[in-house]
């Protein structure tokens, strides 16, 4: 009880409350602008978190990301352009509702079920984390190696692209993480004599480059989205309670699918929304209505993407393995603030853990009033021409990257990763897989090399401990899955030809 009171005291500190409010507004605005994703909103926040207290720093990330995932629904429903990739799955449905004159219902469902999903995800975090932490206390480097490897494989399995390209992207990320002297031998590796590279590639400038600069680069070639027609909204939350009562099962299913996808390392809100929307259509009593402006899919997928956001923190807090790209950023912040992820976080920093739970719940509750305000303000915010928003983003990339270490080399890193991210995206290589590779590279290598040294170069001990054997078989299954699918297709094609 004492720790709980302490946690509440931590959250109601004025700087934390201001951080929650300010980052919520920031998240809502950035998320609603087409092309600016929730990950990018979070990445640009990191330099700001350097100067905040640990709890306030985490509060900004939690609330900005939750708000951004919801507010991506707004331009999706009004303009048929998803604000964040996590809204792309049901953009068509929401827009069809707007055309039928049900914009309020579509947007209201967005805000209401996002909040419900977020709270369900938080509950899963509260329930899942302690028993898993207990289990994780008995893990050795073998288990950590397989866990990290499994996380990387999951990231490639769920990428909406060729699995081979996803694996290549992930390996590229791991290779980038090799740069520097932070390796088992402490020798300069792939530094090409440059002192700037000795410290390795920092994940934050790389993330800013991949998610922010490459987006500005894409904006240079694409046409500006059409301006939003001014409209007056009726009551936004009317009818949401009836919807909750009408669709309890889709809501439940969306929450559970979102939680599972969030807990899987590497798979995030985008994937949760796609899977949930597809499931909703598959299990619906009225599948023929999907695509014509039917709210059921929105209920399920809207809850799902926010639920995955909270449960994505489970592997991040316990093992330091990011649940998605947003928590990949959050892990960096956790380390910086002395809240090193790991099972001992629960015993040593229990009050901070409770504070994170409370912040999630607070963020999801204030999402409802702030979200309603944002929907009403949307026609003004979305009128901001792109030529006024993007220059500010470029400046924030410069200064934000510089602020990570007061070092201009970080700005060069941002530029390089912007180009890399743009080229990868244009050629179908998923950048999220690469980012996870960069973030987890040092950890994977450390676990791998320490395990190899322990086993004297033999691979057998990697499979001997019970938990590591289970994790190993899961990983190998994930690795073999695309091969099996490909082989099956090859055989069916061959059978069809003969």
């Amino acid at each position: 009880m004492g720790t709980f009171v302490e946690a509440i005291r931590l959250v109601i500190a004025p700087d934390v409350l201001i951080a929650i409010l300010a980052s919520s507004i920031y998240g809502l605005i950035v998320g609603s602008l087409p092309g600016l994703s929730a990950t990018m909103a979070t990445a640009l926040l990191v330099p700001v978190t350097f100067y905040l207290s640990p709890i306030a720093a985490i509060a900004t990330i939690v609330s900005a990301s939750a708000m951004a995932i919801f507010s991506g629904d707004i331009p999706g429903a009004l303009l048929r352009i998803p604000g964040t990739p996590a809204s792309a799955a049901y953009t068509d449905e929401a827009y069809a509702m707007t055309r039928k004159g049900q914009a309020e219902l579509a947007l209201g469902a967005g805000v209401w079920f996002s909040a419900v999903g977020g709270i369900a995800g938080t509950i899963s975090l509260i329930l899942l984390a302690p028993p898993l932490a207990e289990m994780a206390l008995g893990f050795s480097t073998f288990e950590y190696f397989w866990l990290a490897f499994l996380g990387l494989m999951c990231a490639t399995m769920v990428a909406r692209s060729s699995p081979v390209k996803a694996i290549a992207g992930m390996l590229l990320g791991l290779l980038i993480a090799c740069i520097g002297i932070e390796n088992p031998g402490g020798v300069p590796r792939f530094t090409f004599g440059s002192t700037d590279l000795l410290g390795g590639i920092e994940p934050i400038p790389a993330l800013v480059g991949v998610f922010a600069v490459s987006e500005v680069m894409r904006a240079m070639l694409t046409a500006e989205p059409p301006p939003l027609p001014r409209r007056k909204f009726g009551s936004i939350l009317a009818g949401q309670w009836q919807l909750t009562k009408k669709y309890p099962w889709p809501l439940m299913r969306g929450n559970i699918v979102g939680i599972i996808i969030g807990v899987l390392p590497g798979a995030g809100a985008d994937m949760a929304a796609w899977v949930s929307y597809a499931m909703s259509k598959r299990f619906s009593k009225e599948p023929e209505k999907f695509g014509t402006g039917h709210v059921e899919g929105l209920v399920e997928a809207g809850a799902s993407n926010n639920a995955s956001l909270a449960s994505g923190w489970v592997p991040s807090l316990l093992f330091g393995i990011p649940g998605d790209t947003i928590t990949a950023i959050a892990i960096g912040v956790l380390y910086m603030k002395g809240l090193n992820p790991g099972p001992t976080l629960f015993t040593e920093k229990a009050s901070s853990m409770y504070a994170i739970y409370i912040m999630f719940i607070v963020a999801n509750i204030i999402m409802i009033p702030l979200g309603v305000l944002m929907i009403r303000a949307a026609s003004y915010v979305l009128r901001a021409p792109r030529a006024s928003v993007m220059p500010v983003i470029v400046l924030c990339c410069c200064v934000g990257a510089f602020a990570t270490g007061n070092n201009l080399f970080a700005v060069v890193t941002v530029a390089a990763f912007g180009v890399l991210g743009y080229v990868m995206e244009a050629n179908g290589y998923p950048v999220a897989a690469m980012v996870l590779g960069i973030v987890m590279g040092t950890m994977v290598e450390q676990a791998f090399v320490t395990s190899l040294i322990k086993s004297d170069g033999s691979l057998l001990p990697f499979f001997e401990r019970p938990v590591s054997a289970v994790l190993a078989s899961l990983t190998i299954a994930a690795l073999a899955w695309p091969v099996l699918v490909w082989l099956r297709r090859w055989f069916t094609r061959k059978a069809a030809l003969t």
Partner: protein
Amino acid sequence: MRLSDRTTGLFLVGLGALAAYGGSRLPPVPGQQIGPNVFPLVIGSGLAICGLMIAFGVGHKFEEEAEADLAAIGGAKDAAPERGFFYNLRVLVPPALLLFYVFAVDRIGFIPTAAIIAFTAAVMLGARLKLAVPVAVLAPVGVHLVFSKLLRVPLPDGYLPMPW
């Protein structure tokens, strides 16, 4: 910049091979067989294998399916109309502006550098002077206020120090 799978795949083969070779030449930890050389060797070989598979078109089917899904949403991503080579070069403007920042900020100071960057970016995105000039004036001052005053990032004053 759409390249063929063969090009990107073969590039990855080369990169993987180089990484494996470069890694294998690193000195081991004294008294151990395993050192900083193992990981690049494993990763580089994996990358080379993936590159070969991509060059031979393995897994291309999955990509087509994902693209068909996105195309079904329609308005989600407009296909950019084909334009000339020089028009397409403007893609490189944002990274060039970042490099310009690195080059200029210590010489002429934050505010002038940022103003040039904001102005160029706005004009390149099709803004008229009526919009580009206010952006170039207000954005640097706003960013300076937040980062320098509130977050205490040491931004160089250069020719135009701010009063705060």
